[in-house]
Structures are given as structure tokens and as C-alpha cells.
């Protein structure tokens, strides 16, 4: 494919080799972490149990493979080389990162075929190279080499190792292996030095660690259980994990118990159910301690805390606790009874004091409304009203009723005072209630009186104002007469202003001189130079001549000469135009053509 392309923009993201190295490093890191994670990730029984099982299983299988290899070598007469062979396998495992689980069967197969330790090791080394180079699994290569050693080259030809069938037929096994060694020399080493090889080595190390841990577990559990069988050991592992889990929970429970210990001590007033002894019995359980030491001890503590508190070791503690509780309950009950009697006496005193207080309060209220003079007055009015036979108004009836209620209040007050003097709570209470009821009635009546007063005030406000009455009219006529009949130039005295009370008649005309208000007297008067006022004089305005008494005040002729806005001709023209226009168009009152 052509690569004609325009890369418009590019971003540097790192070289591929760097990426590979980073990825490989990550894998290595993850591989290293995985072992630690597997061991310490979960502080729980399941993970520990699972890993323990896997470790024991791995160790057992490794042991089994070792024994099988040793047995196979022994059967072919190589028993004395078993240790050497095992060491060789361990060396290859570490060098090339191939699990001994794969190496042992291969070595065993070659050993069985060659019956020679040196030849087996040489062929195993060659098989590793071929496997690394061709990608074939080690078992297939080893099988082909074993068969070729025994004269069957078919399997070898199928491996595709670059040897023709003719060569396979013509050449001896030694020559063929020599050629193969030359062809694939260093392949396994080269492969082991790659990143993948490093990871494989790490994996091998991890598996070896697992096997070592498993071996340790087997040895430990064998010693603890004094039994040899693997099945029993796995059961013990489960028990171990369970005990570890219990131990962890026991720590939490113990902390919680210690936190609540002060409260329990304070409540019971002493040590609670002999805890130290129970703890001692649990923690230093020799049987559990011999098995799992501290873990077993904590687990035992957990069992102790989880069990119902009914065992022999806690029976005394329980009895003590029950005894304390019973004592406390009896004491509390007994004390409660005494307190009730005292409280009853105090309660009675309180009730009496409360009743007296309430009575005093009612008396205080009663004194506010008690007035003997009013009562006597009311009684007099009542008597007068009865004599009259009927009341004259609702307000009077209300007032009489109010006074009667006050008399009832007075009677209730007297009754209450007598009850207080007798120290009878029931009587005091009853008298107090009656007094309060009477006071309520008085209060209600007082409210009614106030309402009536309010209504009266409102009605007065609603009445129309008497602005014009007969007195005002008479006074106005009198003043007009004074004005019209005046002959002097000045008023000797001034009338009082008609202000203030409209129903009051003016006084002092003539008389004293009140303050004048010029606007009032402007009608028909003129102010003079002396500060006074002159009455209206027609002669001064030229309405008639002075001294003509025959016409004075009888006839006034007024001639008015008024001009027009237009001369007569123009006015005539305007009238004519108006008539013509009216005749043509008409108006609101005259239709067109009517003129």
C-alpha cells in the first residue's frame, strides 16, 4: 500500500521501545506486588485459607514430583544421581524461568530413554533451546528427542527444526543433536534474558515461594496435629484460618468490652462477673495455646465472648451480678415507697398553698371591682326603678344589673374569706371558683356598658351639624338692616364677628369694639383714611347728585354705550351670510332650506 499522506498534525506520545519497556516494567512490578498482595491484601480468613491451601497443594505436588523423579531414576539405575538431577533442574528453573513442574517430567522422560544422567542433562538443555526457538512446548520437544534417541526420527522431523528427512535418515543421533545444538545454541538463554523471561523467572520465584510456604505449613501443621495425612492437614489449615478470623474479631470485641467496662463498674458498684478470672481462663487456655499460641489465645477469647454466659467458670460471676441487681432493685423499691409518703405530705401542703394563692389572686381581682358606694347607689337606683315599675332605658337596666353582679361578688368574697379561715381546701376551691365566675359576669357586664357608651358616642357623631338655625338667620337679617339703614360715614362700633358657635347670637352691636376683619365688612363699605370704614354712598360714585333728596334712593338710571366688533355694514353682511349658510346647510335645530 502506498503511503502518500499528509499528516496535518502529529503529537509525540513516546517511542514504541519506551512503551514496551514501560509495559514490561509494569508487568514486573505487578508480578512482584502480586505476591505481597496475595499474602497481605485481605486480613481475612478466606484469603489466608485460600493461599494456605494453594501453598500446601503446591508443596505437596512438588514433593510428589520429586519423589516420582527419584523413583524413576532409581528404577533406571540412576538412583544415586537423584540429588544431582534435582539440583540440575533447580538450576535450570532459576536460569531460564521454567517451572520445575515442567522440567521434571521432561528430565524423567529423557532419563528413562537414555539411562544416562549426563546425556539426559545435555538433551534437556538442547530441548530447552529448541523449545525457546521454535515455540514448541518443552514436553513435545523432549518427547521427540527421546524418540529420536531411540531411533524414531519422525517426531523430530515434525518439529520443523530444519533437518531434512534425508539427513535424519543418514545421520546418527549424535550428529543430529550436534547440528541441532549448533542451530539453536543460546536460544534458551536469549529467551530468558528478555522481558518475558524476567517475568517467567519472577513467576517461578513466586511459585517457589508458595511451595516453600506450603512446605512450612505442612511441617508446622504436621507437628501440631501429630498426623501425617495431607487431608487432615488441609482440615487443620481450615481450622487455622478459622481461628485467625476469630482472633481478629476477638480483638474488636475486647476493645469494645474495655470501652464499656467503666460503665458496667459504675452500674454494679464493683467488679463485673469476675472478669479477670474468666479472661485468664480464656487467654491462657493451654490446649489452644499449644496449638496456635497467640492466635489460639485470641480465638479462645472469642469463643469465650461468643458463648452464652452460663459456663462453670462464669456461674459465680452471674450469681454475683444477679445478687447485686436484686439488691439494687429492692433498695430502689423500698426507697421509692418512703419517698412517696413524704411526697404525699408535701403534695398536700403544696395543694393547700396553691389553693390559697389562687384565692388571694381572686380576692385581688375582687377588690378591683368592689366599691360599696356604687353598690349602695345601685341599690337606690334599683329601688327607684322598681318603684317606677320599669326602667327607662337599656343603659339604666345594664347599670342596675352590673351593680347586682357586684353585690354577688361581694358575697362570694365573704364566703371565700370564711373558707380560708376554716383551712378547708374544698371549700376554698369552691368559693374561689364561685368568685371567679362572678367576676367573669361583672367583667362581661362592664364590657356591655363600655359597648353602650361607645354606641352613644357614635350616634352623637352621626347626628347632623346644626349649621343654620333660626338665631343665625335673625342675626343675618339684623345685620343686613344695619347695613341698609346706615347713614353715617362710619360705624361707631363694630359688630362682633359671627364666628365660633353658630348657634350663638352676636352681641355688642353697638357696643365694645372687637377686632375687625376687613373682609367681613367689605360688602357695602369702603375703608377710609382714618382706619375705619365708610358705608356705601351712591353720590360718591355719581349715581345721583348730592342734595337731590327727591330721587335719592329711588331710581337709578344706567346708560351703557357698547360698541360692536364690526361696523353695521359688516354686521349686516355677516348676518346675511349666516342666513344663507343656514338656508343651505341647516343646523341642529333648522333643516336646510327651511328659511
Amino acid at each position, binding site marked *: 500500500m*502506498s503511503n*502518500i499522506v*499528509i499528516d*496535518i498534525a*502529529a*503529537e509525540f*506520545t513516546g517511542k514504541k521501545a519506551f512503551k514496551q519497556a514501560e509495559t514490561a516494567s509494569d508487568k514486573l512490578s505487578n508480578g512482584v506486588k502480586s505476591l505481597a498482595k496475595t499474602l497481605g491484601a485481605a486480613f481475612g480468613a478466606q484469603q489466608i485459607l485460600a493461599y494456605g491451601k494453594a501453598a500446601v497443594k503446591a508443596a505437596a505436588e512438588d514433593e510428589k514430583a520429586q519423589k516420582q523423579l527419584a523413583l524413576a531414576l532409581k528404577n533406571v539405575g540412576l538412583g544415586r544421581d537423584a540429588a544431582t538431577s534435582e539440583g540440575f533442574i533447580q538450576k535450570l528453573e532459576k536460569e531460564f524461568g521454567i517451572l520445575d513442574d515442567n522440567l521434571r517430567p521432561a528430565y524423567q522422560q529423557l532419563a528413562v530413554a537414555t539411562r544416562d544422567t549426563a546425556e539426559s542433562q545435555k538433551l534437556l538443555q538442547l530441548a530447552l533451546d529448541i523449545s525457546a526457538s521454535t515455540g514448541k512446548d518443552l514436553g513435545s520437544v523432549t518427547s521427540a528427542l527421546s524418540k529420536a534417541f531411540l531411533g524414531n526420527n519422525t517426531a523430530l522431523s515434525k518439529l520443523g527444526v530444519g533437518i531434512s528427512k534425508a539427513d535424519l535418515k543418514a545421520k546418527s543421533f549424535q550428529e543430529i543433536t550436534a547440528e541441532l545444538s549448533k542451530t539453536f545454541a543460546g536460544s534458551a538463554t536469549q529467551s530468558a534474558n528478555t522481558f518475558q523471561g524476567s517475568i517467567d523467572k519472577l513467576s517461578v520465584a513466586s511459585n517457589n515461594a508458595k511451595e516453600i510456604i506450603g512446605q512450612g505449613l505442612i511441617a508446622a501443621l504436621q507437628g501440631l496435629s501429630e498426623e501425617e495425612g495431607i487431608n487432615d492437614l488441609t482440615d487443620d489449615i481450615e481450622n487455622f484460618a478459622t481461628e485467625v478470623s476469630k482472633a481478629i474479631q476477638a480483638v474488636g470485641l475486647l476493645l469494645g468490652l474495655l470501652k464499656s467496662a467503666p460503665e458496667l463498674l459504675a452500674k454494679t458498684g464493683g467488679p463485673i462477673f469476675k472478669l479477670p478470672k474468666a479472661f485468664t481462663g480464656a487467654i491462657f487456655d493451654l490446649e489452644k495455646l499449644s496449638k496456635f499460641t497467640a492466635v489460639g489465645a485470641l480465638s479462645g477469647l472469642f469463643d469465650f465472648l461468643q458463648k452464652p454466659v452460663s459456663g462453670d467458670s462464669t456461674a459465680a460471676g452471674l450469681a454475683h451480678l444477679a445478687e447485686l441487681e436484686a439488691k439494687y432493685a429492692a433498695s430502689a423499691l423500698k426507697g421509692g415507697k418512703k419517698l412517696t409518703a413524704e411526697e404525699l405530705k408535701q403534695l398536700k401542703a403544696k395543694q393547700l398553698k396553691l389553693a390559697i394563692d389562687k384565692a388571694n389572686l381572686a380576692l385581688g381581682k375582687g377588690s378591683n371591682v368592689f366599691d360599696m358606694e356604687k353598690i349602695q347607689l345601685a341599690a337606690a337606683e334599683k329601688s327607684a326603678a322598681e318603684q317606677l315599675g320599669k326602667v327607662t332605658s337599656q343603659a339604666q337596666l345594664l347599670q342596675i344589673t352590673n351593680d347586682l353582679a357586684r353585690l354577688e361578688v361581694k358575697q362570694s368574697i365573704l364566703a371565700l374569706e370564711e373558707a380560708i379561715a376554716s383551712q378547708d381546701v374544698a371549700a376554698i376551691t369552691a368559693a374561689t371558683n364561685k368568685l371567679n365566675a362572678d367576676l367573669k359576669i361583672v367583667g362581661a357586664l362592664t364590657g356591655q356598658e363600655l359597648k353602650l357608651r361607645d354606641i352613644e358616642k357614635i350616634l352623637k357623631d352621626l347626628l347632623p351639624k346644626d349649621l343654620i338655625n333660626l338665631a343665625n338667620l335673625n342675626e343675618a337679617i339684623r345685620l343686613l338692616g344695619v347695613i341698609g339703614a346706615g347713614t353715617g360715614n362710619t360705624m361707631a362700633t363694630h359688630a362682633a364677628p359671627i364666628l365660633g358657635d353658630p348657634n350663638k347670637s352676636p352681641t355688642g352691636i353697638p357696643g365694645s369694639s372687637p377686632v375687625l376683619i376687613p373682609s367681613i365688612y367689605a360688602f357695602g363699605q369702603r375703608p377710609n383714611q382714618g382706619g375705619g370704614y365708610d358705608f356705601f354712598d351712591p353720590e360718591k360714585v355719581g349715581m345721583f347728585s348730592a342734595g337731590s333728596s327727591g330721587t335719592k334712593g329711588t331710581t337709578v338710571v344706567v346708560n351703557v354705550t357698547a360698541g360692536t366688533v364690526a361696523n353695521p355694514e359688516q354686521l349686516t353682511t355677516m348676518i346675511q351670510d349666516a342666513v344663507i349658510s343656514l338656508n343651505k346647510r341647516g343646523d341642529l335645530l333648522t333643516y336646510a332650506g327651511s328659511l
Partner: protein
Amino acid sequence: MPVEVKGVIALRKALNAYAPDLAKQLTVEITQSLKVIQKSARGFVPSSAPGNLYNWDRQPSAEPKAFNTSGRVRPFPRYDATVIKRGIVYRTGYGKPNSKGFRSLFRVRNKSAAGAIYETAGRKNPNGDPASKSNNPNAGARFVQQGPLYGSKKAGQDMRGRVIYRAWAQDEGKQLKAIFDAIDKTDKAFKARIASGQVKGAA
């Protein structure tokens, strides 16, 4: 050489994760610019084989299985304007890193074989190659005679051609600027969203 930028891949990943609408908008705007180059480049493809290149577009009666003996097994690509135009494509997705660690962000490609020939013929031997084993050793010179190579050649990259390189050279960076403007605009819009708290899940 392509323009080296930084952070575009991260930006587009963030957009895809937290603002898909902005990611789509950015892709649309980039596509518009790339389409301009694509359309221009397709316009430079002759409808028939250039002159003096006899029988390039003619289908022989007996098509040879291979046009040389160097292991190539397919026939020599015939000139077909339709195929060449169809082969001028653009891509907006970032590809795999090359040997130097660069990842292409946006690109225009002339991917047909005939198009590649017409695009680049005459680059190496503008005067022909007498030592060539081809049936037409002077093909390079004939191509150059038909039309010059547009673009520039710099150390490490020869960006001379007759189709997409010509379109890119004649654009004079307008679309490149438009693409970067679109990226900047989207970047600002995305940051504004983050600042306003409209982007959920973004720190």
C-alpha cells in the same frame, strides 16, 4: 513535516468522556477543513491518463499476473480517475505511533496505487532512470513533462506531488489554521464548562 502539537489527544479523550457534543463539534469542524483539501485534490486528478503515457489506462487483453519479477504478484495498477478520486480520503482519528513516537492526528491520504503513481512519479528520477528494469525507464521524465511536482522537499520528508500535495501547497495553510482555531475554540469551551461546573465528573 507535520506540525507537532501537544495535548490534542488528551483533549479529545477528555471531550469524548465528559463533553461528547464538543467532541462531535470539533470533529465536524476539522472535517470541514479536510474536505476542502480533499475536494481540491480530487480536482487535480485528470479524467484520463496524462499524455505520452500510452496505454496506462487501457485494459490489455492479457493482463500479466505481475508487473515485475521482484515478488509482486498483482498487475500494474491501471489509471482510473474514479478509483484515484475515491482513494483520496481524510481521517480524523489519531493513529498508531510511528517509529519516532509520533501519532498522526489528522491526515489526508492518496491511498490508491494509481493515484500514488500519479502523485509522486518523477520525484526520484525526474529525468528518467536508464538503469531501471521497467518497460518504460523514462517514465519519470515523461511524468515531469506532463506536469510539475508541487510542494516542497525538506530534510526527512518529501512533500511534492500532483494531487493531495498540490492541494495542500495551494491552500497555503488556511485549513491548518482553521483546524487549530477549532481546537483552540473547543478547548476554551471545554475549560469554560469545567469552570462553570457543567461538566460532571471532571475534577
